[in-house]
């Protein structure tokens, strides 16, 4: 199946970060170490292509932890499918995100 997006290094890093448990914007920025201005456009594009889905966390949970509600990103089944290629093409990156493999 043809990919819905171009698999660049930053895209792969974002996908790996999400898979290894970094699930919200600033956390993904910190985990990938990508320039700040690149992460959100990637997230938006992947979400629009159906690779990721973003969901607001439960409001009560955020309130109980005394912080603003977060928007968490997770891989869709389409995203999960493309992970094989990520792991294949960027093996060195995988090492940086234990738990992503």
């Amino acid at each position: 199946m043809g990919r819905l997006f171009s698999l660049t290094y930053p895209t792969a890093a974002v996908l790996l970060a999400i898979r290894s448990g970094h699930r919200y914007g600033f956390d993904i920025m910190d985990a990938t170490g990508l320039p700040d201005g690149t992460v959100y456009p990637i997230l938006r594009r992947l979400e629009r292509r159906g690779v990721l889905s973003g969901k607001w966390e439960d409001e009560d949970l955020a309130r109980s932890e005394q912080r603003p509600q977060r928007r968490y990103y997770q891989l869709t089944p389409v995203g999960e499918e493309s992970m094989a290629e990520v792991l294949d093409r960027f093996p060195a990156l995988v090492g940086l995100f234990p738990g992503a493999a």
Partner: protein
Amino acid sequence: MADGVPGLRLIAFAARMVPAARRATWRKEWEGEVTWAWKRLTSAGRPSTMAVARLRLRVLTCLIDALWEMKETMTMTGLLNDVRFAARSLFRYPMFTAIAVLTLALGIGANTAVFTLVDGVLLSPLPYSDSERLVSIEHLGRDGQDELSMSTGLYALYREHVTATRSLALHTSAAVNLVSNGESERIAVQAVTPGFFEVLGVSPSSGRAFVDEEGAPGGEQVVILSDGMWKSRFGGDPSAIGQSLDINGTNRRIIGIMPEEFGYPDRTAQLWLPLVVDPTTAPLAAFGPSGIARLADDASIESLDTELRGLISRLMEFFPDSGAPAFLAEVGLRPLVSPLKEAVVGEVGTTLLILLGTVGFVLLIACANVANLLLVRAEGRQRELALRIAVGAGRAQVLRTFLSESIILAGAGSLLGLVVARISLTLTTRMLPSDLPRAHEVGLDLRVLGFTFAIAVGCALFFGLFPLLRYNADDLGTQLRDGAAHGATGGRDRNRLRSSLVVVQMALALVLLVGSGLMLRSFQALRAMDPGFETERILTARITVPEVEISSWQEAAGFYRTLGDRLRGQSGVEAVGFAQSVPLGAGLGFYSVELEDHPRGPSELPVFASNNQIEVGFLETMGIDLVEGRTFVSGDGAEGTRVVVVSKSFADHWWPGRSALGRNVRLGFPEEEWYQIVGVVEDTHYLSLENDPQEMIFWPATIGTAANPQPTRGMDVAVRTAGDPTAFVAVLRREVQALNPRIPVSNPRTMDDLMSAATARTSFTMSLLGAASGIALLLGLVGIYGVISYIVSQRTREIGVRLALGATAPSVRGMIVRQGFVLTAGGVCIGLVVAAGLSRVMASLLYGVSATDPLTYGLVAVSLVIVSLSASWIPARRAAGVDPSRALRSE
């Protein structure tokens, strides 16, 4: 949400670019992330500057995110295609595009620059927390004739009884001698009551603010440093707190350092000292310091005003043994409570709003010009557009093409306009009048960018809509069938539209030219006015003799006299004098006096006059002419011959038609001695050039009683030199040092500097109005030239026929120039009416010229007609040079 989270405004701003459907989510996500990051950063105390900067940088990237979102939407709706198409077609006509963009950049840039000033000074709130709760408390006397500030006595009373304020404070500017390493320096300070910082809601960046005991008699001698002082004197060393400074001969302990951005009302103060008030002895009627207060939660300006009025009416009850309440009742003392911002900004508001109106006009003219250009271009594209419709493009699509072009032009114009604004701001801030309040707060910020964005959109709609009004798809369909119209009725309609744009441009240009003409005449009048004193080759400087340095009155008075003698002995010195205040130096005392032969009746108000203490030789140095009698000679003064010299207006006011010589005056305090008038001098514009001359009394250098002579301890020296006065500053310093090295010379200026400062606002307004009207005139001329040229090109065939039938070249030229004249005359007539209507707004800025000065109006109108006739002359000559045979073949 946590306080002080950085970047929330930026996020709100960027969110506007995100498509409406996704905007709320987008904003919530960013705000949530930033708030949480900030909370984590600040949970462990003060975050490092690096960490804060990194977070700020990260927030900045929300702009990138928002731009991508916008681009995505534009791609989806096909708008991106439109923009691409429009950009390509604009690039095909680089000359047209360049002129349009430059015109807009000028208009938008000028507006952005002036709006930045207006925003910084007038619109944005003062930089203190809850600043709308801050008020200034002053007083008025004699039905508003006297502007009285606050007195320490009233402060003590209000502080004890007023409930409508949460806190109340006094502040007053002063200068002190700061001595370090044997060198003494005169620096600006502010004496404030301990609650000053609390009222403004500002606390020191390190150390602490004053406590109540430090503002009471016997409190510890302390001082708070400005950030600048701390950095320059202590290299930013935190251990400065606890050290001492020698201020006016007293050692004061440093207890705090204020943040860098702090300063009220401006950033001139380098140190803050506690203003000591003893409630039991504080004088009620000695007005001087200014009052500020923070309103209590449930209070308003009106409720505070009512409360203060109540207290003032009961002054007799509070101070039964003092004479002051009776005096204040006679003066009709009443409070003047106003929002603090109003008090800070003062009357400069009118000037700024007029400037904003002016550049608004320039922008309108620029837009009219671009609209004209677009109309001309649209004309040339009729067939192209008709073709697009014929092959199936919807009307909406054609309209979108027009609008996309406008948006690109406006966008490019505003980007370049920001550059223009940046440059012109740098230039104008250099020539801003030094008394412009809040000038240090002026800068390009998000609000200004928002403003620029808004006017760009406004412009795009304005000139984008003009072609739309003219062309609808039906017309274009007809045109494709009939071929491009030449000189048909449709063409005439379009000419009419363009012509009315030119008329509007001319009218607006005339209004601006009249405005700058009036300012020019005011400036000339101010410059040509005889101020009553000489200004050439006179150097002035402030010399203060503190009591701790020289305590006896003989030595203090003697210091100035000895210095005067030493200075007179220098080569190149023509005359030397000393005064409490030199003209335009803003140090005059304004208080009540008594006249022996005009005893004050019980219902009469006290006599007020400007008072100035001067040394022998001062009037001669300043070239203030004697009308009758004599000026001061050595031996005059409290300890010797008690005499005064008065100004002509004072003498004429009290002894009209008679001589004032030999009459007695004394200061309006009990137990003062009578001083005899021995001289009358010409009136001078001592306070400002615009106001009428003041009624003045010149007192000798020592006043008071023979038993207790009071010298003035702060005097301006005036030295008239044979050559360049500025070269004499070093000599002056050397001579003062030789007498006493701990006495500083401050603020050396020439009288010419003082004159320039006094005319600064007029010259500033004049320069800006002049620049604006110059641009307006240029754009107006380009407009009229463009329209006439276009008319000529459209009528080439007709002109050819006329010439072939025997019309002469002059008659053809006349015909074309006449068209230009009709447009100009229309514009001038409308402009004259509008200018007369608007000039009333300007009246407060004018001096020596009426707002409806016929000469200015006439000259401007005639010059505008002449100049625009020359602009139509060029196309007219071209028309007369048409070769009939070629013109006829051209169809």
